[in-house]
């Protein structure tokens, strides 16, 4: 009945396993995938006494995995060998099986173990979220947060997600980039009925890959993603490869349209976004990434913004992109880079050793993505001479002052009254003055000593390592002639 369609498909063993699974379909891989969790789950329920059976099943899979590994490598089946290595393993536990991630400005989703299955509960609901001091908006998120809490699991974990809908609209959860049975994929109408308001659905599957995935609503995506219904999924490898990292940060990139003076994102906006966030916070509300000198740092970046790819640039270091959303990149394929492009719907993970102390900027390099609530209808007045114009305008509008002739940089610190609930253009104070950046900007703070993730304050640059005004003596010494202003 079943016809292998892929030349890379394992032969006898998979047929045998497939027969166990009543939900077997004509697709080759899902049969195996569905089968493994089932066996795993059944074994777990049977408990310790079934170790012989488990060993047997594991052996069969191992055998199968070994055979599969012997096949020519195919890009569509990369995890086949790995799967064997975790099957039957107990649920991954923090600090034993993995080093938990740090989610700046966010949290990880708690779970409980029920018969060897990690049980999670997500509640989709409206949340009043603060993007930065001065700007709150009614968004949609999960468990009282925007974005949803980060889900953290270990490769091979059997998971059960209960999803309760407390929104006014139907919703679903799609496990983005996660390999699972089609019926668990969460596309409303395609894979399942949408979860109506007040209903709770159950999703259950086994993580059989490692890397970073994401979750988001897959019903009326345009509205629900734009309203913030996204989250990260960190899947730690059962057997990590590569050097061990000391700090593991997870960041979700997102973009929004929130007009100055409103208090709800506009999901109808297609292209013209004015709020760019890291873990749903805009600078100066983005928590710094605090690292001790010499630590190996991993930064995981996910992007579920509606529209824009974000070239995230880190100052001070070369990093290597070690993972994409499909898994770990072989070491031979990792490039040294300072900017990693995170496309919409993708994750990227970078790693580096933080061996130079300091305050290092990390930001999206699309310049308008480091602005808060930028006004896109402001006229171009760069280089304009206001002359006596201001006095004339003030006859009509006493509060008027021409601005923007030298750009928007100093707008944020002018302290002029602005619409309520808005943080237009503004950035925040830095050690050496006003930082004219907002949005997707945060600071990697590398110190000799740290106190966890506690903000250590601004870096004190050792003498001689700080750019300052050049003295006349220096200029003369080096034969620099400064042209007079014309």
């Amino acid at each position, binding site marked *: 009945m079943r016809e292998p369609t892929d030349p890379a498909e394992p032969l006898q063993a998979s047929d045998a396993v497939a027969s166990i699974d009543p939900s077997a379909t004509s697709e080759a891989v899902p049969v195996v995938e569905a089968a493994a969790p089932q066996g795993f789950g059944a074994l777990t329920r049977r408990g310790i006494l079934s170790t012989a059976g488990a060993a047997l099943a594991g052996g069969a899979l191992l055998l199968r995995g070994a055979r599969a590994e012997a096949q020519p490598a195919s890009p569509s089946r990369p995890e086949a060998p790995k799967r064997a290595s975790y099957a039957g393993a107990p649920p991954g536990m923090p600090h034993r099986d993995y080093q938990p991630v740090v989610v700046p400005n966010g949290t990880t989703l708690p779970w409980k173990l029920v018969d060897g299955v990690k049980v999670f509960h997500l509640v989709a609901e409206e949340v009043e979220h603060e993007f930065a001091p001065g700007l709150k908006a009614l968004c949609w998120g999960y468990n009282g947060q925007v974005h949803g809490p980060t889900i953290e699991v270990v490769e091979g974990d059997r998971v059960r997600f209960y999803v309760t809908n407390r929104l006014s609209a139907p919703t679903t959860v799609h496990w983005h980039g996660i390999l699972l049975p089609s019926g668990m994929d969460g596309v409303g109408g395609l894979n399942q009925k949408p979860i109506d308001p007040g209903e709770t659905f159950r999703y259950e599957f086994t993580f059989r890959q490692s890397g970073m995935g994401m979750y988001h609503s897959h019903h009326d995506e345009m509205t629900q993603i734009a309203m913030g219904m996204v989250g990260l999924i960190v899947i730690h490898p059962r057997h990590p490869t590569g050097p061990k990292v000391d700090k593991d940060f997870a960041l979700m990139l997102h973009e929004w349209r929130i007009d100055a003076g409103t208090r709800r994102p506009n999901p109808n906006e297609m292209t013209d976004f004015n709020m760019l966030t890291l873990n749903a916070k805009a600078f100066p509300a983005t928590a710094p990434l605090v690292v001790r000198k010499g630590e190996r740092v991993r930064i995981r970046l996910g992007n579920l913004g509606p529209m824009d790819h974000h070239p995230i640039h880190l100052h001070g270091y070369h990093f290597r992109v070690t993972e994409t959303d499909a898994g770990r990149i072989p070491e031979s394929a990792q490039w040294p880079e300072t900017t990693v492009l995170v496309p919409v719907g993708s994750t990227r993970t970078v790693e580096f050793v933080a061996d130079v102390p300091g305050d290092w900027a990390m930001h999206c390099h699309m310049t308008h993505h480091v602005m808060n609530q930028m006004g896109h209808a402001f006229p171009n007045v760069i*280089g304009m001479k206001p002359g006596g114009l201001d006095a004339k*305008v003030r006859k009509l*509008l006493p509060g008027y002052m021409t601005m923007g002739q030298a750009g928007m940089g100093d*707008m944020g610190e002018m*302290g002029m009254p602005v619409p309520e609930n808005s943080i237009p253009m503004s950035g925040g104070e830095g050690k050496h003055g006003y930082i004219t950046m907002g949005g997707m900007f945060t600071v990697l703070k590398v110190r000799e000593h740290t106190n966890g993730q506690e903000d250590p304050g601004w870096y004190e640059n050792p003498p001689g390592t700080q750019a300052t005004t050049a003295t006349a003596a220096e200029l003369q010494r080096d034969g620099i002639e400064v042209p007079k202003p014309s």
Partner: protein
Amino acid sequence: MKRAAMLSLALLAGGCASMQKERGHQEVAALVEARTGLKTRWDQGTPEDAEVSRHLDTLLGEPLTSDRAVEVALLNNPALQQTYEELGVSQADMVQAGLLSNPVLSGSVGVPIGNLGVTEHEFSLVQEFVDIFTLPLRKRVAKEQFIADTLRVAHEALSTAAEVRKAFREFQARRQLVELRREVLLAAEVSAEFAARQREAGNITELELATEQATAEQSRLDLSQEELTLVEDREHLNRLMGLWGPRIQWTLSESLPELPAKEAPLEHLETTAIKQRLDIDAARKQASLMWNALELAKTTRWFGRVEVGVHTHRDSDGPRLFGPTLSLELPIFDQRQGLIGKLEAQYRQSERRLTELSVNARSEVRAARARLQSLRMQAEHYRTTVLPLRDKVIAQSQLQYNAMQIGLTPLLTAKKEQVESYRGYLETVRDYWMARAELEQLLGGRLPGSTEPPPSPAPPPAPAAPEHSHEHSHP
């Protein structure tokens, strides 16, 4: 009050057979004063008129008010003075009607042509006799005509007063509308200058600059049109006040007043109008006098000419003869059918005219009352809702500008829209006062509570924006 005036009118109209110059105008003045509280005068070149002239200069020396403008017009409007002369004509007719026809003395002398005979003399003194019977009736008709004319003239004076009030409001509002138009121009000029400076910096296209400049120039034309209208409105008022020469230098300090806090009670206005309006009264009198004239014609239809006299005659050779004469017209063919028919028609005509006037007066009062109420409602809506919203739009635009969400141009557009709303408000308040004058004219008197509330529709206040908390450097 009205009854007393009528009584004095009747007394005055009775019996005098000689012309009295001030006659009639005093009645007009009493009627007008009773209804407006203001005196009117008939300029007849007397020493008192010089007094009036000085009074006019005093009135015009101070800033003009609505009441003062009406007073000047009542004293000085040439059309009104012209109308007052009609009273003279009417009075003359009345005097004429009270006179008996003069006796007729006729005589003849006959001189013989040959040698025979002597000169013959014949004399007669004949008096038209019917006059004695018809005179009281004729006098009554003429008196009624005079009263009707007086009422009509007083009505004219009141109409002029109402027209002055309307023209005054028109002018008063226009001054403020011109000011607002200047503000619109300033906004457009500033917008164009902003564009010019942007263009100079190389930031906008020639097209965008030209568009802004064209808008500003259009605003300039709009202003000059409005300034012309202001001159025309002033001249309208000058004509109504009969002014020329140095007297046209009058000034105006008050702006258009706010609406009165409470509207006068608007019930029973139709009845009031019917009772109080002088033109209706005049029409009523006219109908009544047509009836009397008709009666007169009917009672005398069988009287022909009756002439009674004495006659003396001496023939050439006879004795001198003396005796009465009687000449009697026999109304065999002409029994005044034509005159009676004409008077009957004219009587019915005057009745119809009274009906028409009353029906129209009632309808006009209803319409004017509705207009007054609607304009009050609109003005209130402007004041309590539209203008505060416009102020809010300005304040919020300023905030959006501060946040660099919008530029100067939309900010100025908001300002222009605010000014336009204030213009709409001013026009509504002006129309309200004009409707009020109109209603008062239709009622033939003033509405209760017509003393003027304090001036107010102020020009749009510019929003008080807080100063910047922080110095900002500019090149």
